[in-house]
């Protein structure tokens, strides 16, 4: 069995640590490129969301490298993600691509469904070894988040931005290659220390919160490198979704104590969106209010085109913006978004919030 799974930002590092330690053979899809998009778009439904199309592209490229089994997550609605795997399987069948699909999803009837699927994957490995592999993967998830958090903070501050990017990429590679927890921790702390010594600008940067749908936030290819673009424009970005916090909340049921950006997002969202709407709709509104309360200069929402929960969230934005007097910008992304258009809109938005922020200081 040669297992593969679709890309979502740095998630591949975490999953690779988990699966390799479970004794599985992996063939990862190559990093997402324009070719991936073209393959995916050609075979996907026109109005499916962007992640769906990138997934299909990833599968086909992994198949070219020899993968024969796909590991995918699922769900039970109302977000479309829950039905991805079913449609994707049909597409692969119709293309004559022979690939197995193992879909991990919340059980419909009993927990045994999940247990059986995992058993089928890991063979006769003991549960203790599985737990050990999970702990190692968790350690890498924390390391990746620590590195990415640092880079978000430093991008607008350091003078040598390209050197920063280089060390960042290198640190991710080293974390990915690390074989034990000691190495992971050493690489991470080494990176953090070295970065703190880089020469910096004096001025405090503007602060922008990034909210929205998880895939478009975490996958730089899908959001046209939004975080780096903002960093280079001199803006400190705070993400609302972190890989480790997400794993803890959704896969471990909040077992561990992880610092979460927007702890009270459910309560904060209530005056504007008083219902679960699937996906990250309610979190988007809650986090936006959270950022506004902490005096951020602006909030940017990212979502794939036709994403239903984010459309609902975006629909109530005028009320949030009015109440907190905070500028909000939304990007709906798909394969047709143009880089120049995104850059222009970002520059205009940054100019606007810079002016707003100056005005506010004058009043004080």
């Amino acid at each position, binding site marked *: 069995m040669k297992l593969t799974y679709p890309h979502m930002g740095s998630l591949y590092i975490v999953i690779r640590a988990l699966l390799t330690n479970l004794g599985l053979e992996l063939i990862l899809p190559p990093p997402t490129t324009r070719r991936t998009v073209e393959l995916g778009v050609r075979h996907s*439904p*026109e*109005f*499916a*969301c962007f992640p769906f199309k990138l997934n299909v592209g990833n599968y086909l490229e992994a198949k070219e490298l020899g993968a024969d089994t796909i590991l995918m997550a*699922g769900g*039970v*609605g*109302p*977000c*479309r993600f*829950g*039905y*991805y*795997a*079913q*449609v994707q399987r*049909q*597409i692969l069948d*119709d293309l004559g691509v022979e690939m197995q699909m193992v879909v991990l999803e919340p059980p*419909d009837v009993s927990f045994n469904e999940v247990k059986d699927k995992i058993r089928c994957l890991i063979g006769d490995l003991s549960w203790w070894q599985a737990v050990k592999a999970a702990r190692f993967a968790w350690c890498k998830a924390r390391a990746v988040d620590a590195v990415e958090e640092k880079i978000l903070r430093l991008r607008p501050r350091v003078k040598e931005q390209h050197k920063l990017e280089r060390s960042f990429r290198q640190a991710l590679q080293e974390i990915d290659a690390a074989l034990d927890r000691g190495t992971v921790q050493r690489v991470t702390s080494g990176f953090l220390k070295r970065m703190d010594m880089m020469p910096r600008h004096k001025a405090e940067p503007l602060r922008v919160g990034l909210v929205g749908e998880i895939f478009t936030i975490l996958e730089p290819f899908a959001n046209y490198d939004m975080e780096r673009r903002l960093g280079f424009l001199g803006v400190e970005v705070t993400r609302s979704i972190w890989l480790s916090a997400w794993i803890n909340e959704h896969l471990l049921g909040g077992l561990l104590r992880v610092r979460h950006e927007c702890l009270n997002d459910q309560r904060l969202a209530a005056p*504007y*969106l*008083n*219902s*679960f*709407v*699937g*996906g990250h*709709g309610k979190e988007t509104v809650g986090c936006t209010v959270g950022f506004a309360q902490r005096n951020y200069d602006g909030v940017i929402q990212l979502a794939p*085109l*036709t*994403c*239903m*929960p984010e*459309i*609902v*969230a*975006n*629909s*109530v*934005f*005028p*009320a949030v913006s009015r109440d907190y007097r905070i500028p909000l910008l939304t990007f*709906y992304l798909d394969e047709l978004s143009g880089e120049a258009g995104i850059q222009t809109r970002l520059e205009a938005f940054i100019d606007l919030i810079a002016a707003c922020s100056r005005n506010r200081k004058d009043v004080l």
Partner: protein
Amino acid sequence: MTKIGIPRALFYFYYYPLWRAFFKDLGLEVVLSPPTNKAILDDGVRSTLSEACLPVKVFFGHTAALAEQVDYLFVPRISRVEAKAYICPKFMGLPDMLKARLERLPPLIDTVVDAGRDGDRRSCWEDCLREAGGIFTRDKQLTDRSMEAAMQAQRRFKKRLTAGMLLTDALEDNKVSEAAAASHPQRKLKIGLLGHPYNLYDPYSSMNLIKKLDALGASVVTPESLTDKEIDDEAAKLPKRMFWTLGKRMLASALIFCRSIRLDGLIYLTSFGCGPEALVEELVARWAKQRNDLPLITLTIDEHTGEAGMVTRLEAFTEMIKRRPKA
């Protein structure tokens, strides 16, 4: 008399008999917005996000048209009308979207309809209506009586649908008998028509699709003529449980249409940007392709759709069916 407004959009097409009977029996005056027209659509387009789908825009237009005339607006927060199956995230956030984007709204009756994980089709509406009734009267017996009348009206409506009556006729509680309405003249062509009822039966949104087909010599079969049980049984055969109520109806009807009835073709009407449809329609199209002799056309509508384009495509489709050699 207190006036309660019901927008003629979205789930009006499924549950109007239930709502009307309930509020009428409670002693309220039920005010329905006029049929969709250009002004309503334009209003809706202006007040919604451009990314929202056409039916949601239409709903906003109807709400705005009613806002000044009524004391209350009935906009239930419809989450699940059967166990474990949602409608769509936009339905769940509808009252919030209205409040954030429309000004001068009368108080919204936004009680929750949620069958949860083990409720049923009846109890979820009972909960919603009981709560809504509590706003107008403290008389529990009156509420219960109105509820009974409402359920009866809804049952009657369902019965008329499965008897083969077109939804628009069944909805307007007119005096045509079921048998007379169901025995519309059989045309040469028989076409399966898939699509959400709020698109299919809104003559303005769908640009009179059903009448147009009739004029082209085709009679239609719609998912509404199938009973809930038929839909459920068929949907149970899917490899994965479908978690959208409307998606389930579409998939199951498509399977039934593909298999049992002698149909000449399928027409799938979707609205631009409809989330669930993007995946459901893809599956239906792929299944229809597997059956070599069942042509399918997908018509996507939005606020920019031109009538001439629609007519041309329908004419081409029916011509193509008429001329292909019968197997």
